[in-house]
């Protein structure tokens, strides 16, 4: 049987619902605040701040179902520790931000770390959400089972919507067993060769779980049963990294505390087709996810960065800095922008939640 827990959030949810109903009546917008770790990206949001940290608590967890349900304000560090006790993990390896990052925030901002490369993103593991919609109604979509095709997928629509489509109160996510073992290999390799090599490896049945490249060094993490890692390492070559150093490296990417991010200047996140060749842009690069997520420190004009990302099959988000007036989010094509405004209207007709985020709405 599932661990029967009284829903610790009923009261908090009720209070938030009353607050939203008041906002709807007054037509006064709200700015939803989780752990506040993404504040830099929602800088355009107007509205009165509404703290969601009250939605903190585990609601249900049954390891054999591979599902955990918790309040949206639950710190990811708490969830990760609970899962680790049962030998499980959040497969998308989100940043914990020293205990500040919350489950709802990870969903809204679609946050994933090194393992997101081949394991999948938050949306891939999202099974259900409960929301307070833009009319102040409590609604639920999806559930706690892995296969569920009843109705439109309003659940996954919340991933990466930055809270603009509802106040998420509860989240159910699929979890996975932790790998028995991990090891990290490193290779001295120029960027172009590294992009080529990593995608060639990814096309083979190898137990890969993370990759990064910066300053001429490619690092590759493998996860799985020890015997499989040993044989894969023998095939791949390279130099094995000490466990502590490896752990520190992947943590610094997950938390974005790697020295690359500590240096000042304008920082862009480009999501591009992983096999795209080296981008013709000035500045310093660090990439992850097989070349799919490329971090770029550059003072190149925003237009140049965005066109370059588009040509590489993707988009660019202004992560930090930049000239004033440059939108944070990559503007979608006109037809898609119009469609997204209509979807926003369907879930939040009075524009109560996070007006101005994403900034193309």
């Amino acid at each position: 049987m599932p661990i029967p827990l009284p829903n610790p959030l009923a009261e908090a949810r009720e209070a938030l619902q009353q607050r939203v109903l008041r906002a709807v009546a007054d037509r006064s917008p709200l700015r939803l605040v989780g752990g506040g770790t993404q504040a830099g990206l929602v800088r355009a949001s107007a509205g009165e701040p509404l703290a969601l940290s009250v939605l903190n608590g585990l609601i249900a967890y049954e390891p054999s179902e591979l599902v955990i349900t918790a309040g949206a304000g639950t710190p990811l560090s708490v969830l990760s520790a609970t899962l680790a006790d049962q030998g499980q993990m959040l497969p998308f390896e989100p940043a914990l931000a020293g205990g500040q990052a919350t489950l709802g925030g990870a969903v809204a901002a679609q946050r994933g770390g090194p393992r997101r490369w081949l394991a999948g993103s938050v949306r891939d593991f999202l099974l259900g959400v409960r929301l307070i919609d833009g009319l102040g109604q409590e609604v639920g979509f999806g559930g706690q089972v892995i296969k569920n095709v009843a109705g439109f997928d309003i659940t996954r629509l919340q991933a990466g919507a930055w809270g603009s489509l509802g106040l998420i109160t509860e989240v159910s996510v699929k979890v996975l067993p932790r790998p028995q073992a991990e090891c990290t290999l490193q290779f001295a390799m120029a960027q172009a060769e590294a992009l080529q090599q990593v995608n060639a490896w990814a096309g083979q049945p190898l137990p890969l779980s993370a990759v990064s490249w910066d300053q001429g060094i490619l690092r590759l993490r493998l996860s799985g049963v020890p015997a499989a890692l040993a044989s894969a390492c023998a095939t791949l070559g390279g130099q094995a990294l000490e466990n502590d150093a490896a752990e520190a490296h992947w943590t610094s990417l997950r938390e974005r505390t790697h020295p690359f991010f500590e240096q000042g200047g304008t920082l862009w996140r480009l999501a591009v087709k992983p096999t795209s060749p080296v981008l013709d842009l000035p500045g310093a690069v660090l990439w992850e996810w097989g070349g799919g997520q490329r971090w770029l420190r550059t003072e190149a004009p925003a237009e140049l960065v965005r066109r370059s990302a588009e040509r590489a099959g993707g988009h660019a988000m202004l992560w930090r800095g930049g000239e004033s007036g440059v939108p944070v989010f990559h503007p979608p094509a006109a037809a898609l922008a119009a469609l997204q405004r209509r979807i926003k209207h369907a879930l939040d007709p009075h524009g109560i939640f996070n007006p101005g985020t994403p900034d193309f709405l």
Partner: protein
Amino acid sequence: MGHIESLPSSATRKPDDAALVAALRNVLPHAAVLTETEARRPYESDGLSAYRQQPQVVVLPANEAEVQAVLQVCHRLGVAVVARGHGTGLSGGAMPNERGVLMSLARLNRILEIDAHARTARVQPGVRNLAISEAVAPQGLYYAPDPSSQIACSIGGNVAENSGGVHCLKYGLTVHNLVKVRALLIDGTVIEVGADAPDAAGFDLLALLTGSEGLLAVVTEVTVRLLPRPRTVQALLASFDDVERAGQAVANIIAAGIIPAGLEMMDGPATRAAEAFVHANYPVDAEALLICESDGTAEEVADETARMRAVLEAAGATEVRFSRDEAERLKFWAGRKAAFPAVGRLAPDYYCIDGTIPRRTLGSVLNWMYARAEALGVQVVNVFHAGDGNLHPLLLFDAAKAGDFARTEVLANEILAKCVEVGGTITGEHGVGVEKIDAMCVQFNAAELGIFLGVKAAFDPDGLMNPGKAVPVLHRCAELGRMHVHHGALPHPDLPRF
């Protein structure tokens, strides 16, 4: 069979056949517009043949421009349009509308691009699921979602239904294996959702379109993610003398930290029917059979199968067999794959139910189901995706016998309600279509249905795409007495009801 209600008649009107046909002939070659009764007959139903309807006209566009032209005609004339892949759906999703156009995407059947290095394939919607894996096999790649209908169903239909397969416990559903989709809105606007990049700018419209059952847009191009073919695959066949113990074994495998590539269950009647049909050498005295598959490198498979055997034996398996070679592995699967036709030999008709429950309730729900079936005098056979908790009870009946199907429908509805009651859902992979439109009123309250209708209106304000499917209009639920009105208020007062 119940009368199928479609959207209010104001949403769709029936222009006279001549005007509609003339408008379509204007934009399509003559042979691509079917008006003869005989020519339209094959399109009357999908795989759920109990629900049938003659469309006003059938069109067979051959490329995206023709699809666009058809949609523009329907939009201009206010005519309903139903997209159809290869018609294997099991919920009546592609059942035509009597006042509209049935558009088959079958002629858009080309593989446009295979990018082996990026591990993607870009294909037209009418390409069959299995044809993708066949086309990329020389590169050592495959497309993971494998519905049992994969030799026949289209990738466009898979996107519309978010189809699963026996390997989706480990590799995910259709939604997890898509990169990007090109689709047309009712007014002919082209949209591209998803991206070759790990994520796309803006809302996740790719997830929203997946599983939308042809209500939001017509899919004209699909880019799928391909995976490297595993080097080693092995299957285990475990017998149990009791379904409860087999259900517990399923939960224990997952709890032990194992995610098998496949984890399927067949109950005693299914096992015996399959054995009689294909002679897979199944143990016919077993009350439940589990087929567990492991894939990966040789080391991974050796480790995982050893751990699975230990869990199965501890859970009380009376026998655990390992496939010794590829031929034996395929033999283990042969019975499972032929289970539906095998059951088809037991009775003139059967009704396949689709619902999902938490794994831990497998044993108790199956025993409840046997008891209800006996009380109602219906024979039930179970063969299903146990690892996902996705049930497929097959209810046997004889359509020629008065009252037989009615009893079957009673049990079917009870089973779906049970799925919801234990924390599951009314459909795991076959979709809502027309079949489960009423059950939607059980699973969702008025506010939730209102949001579905709002999203529908954001894509298709006149309700012309596949009307009457997947999402019930609110007055339908109200008339059924199943509407949950929340806080005394109906949402979206602008939407049609009462």
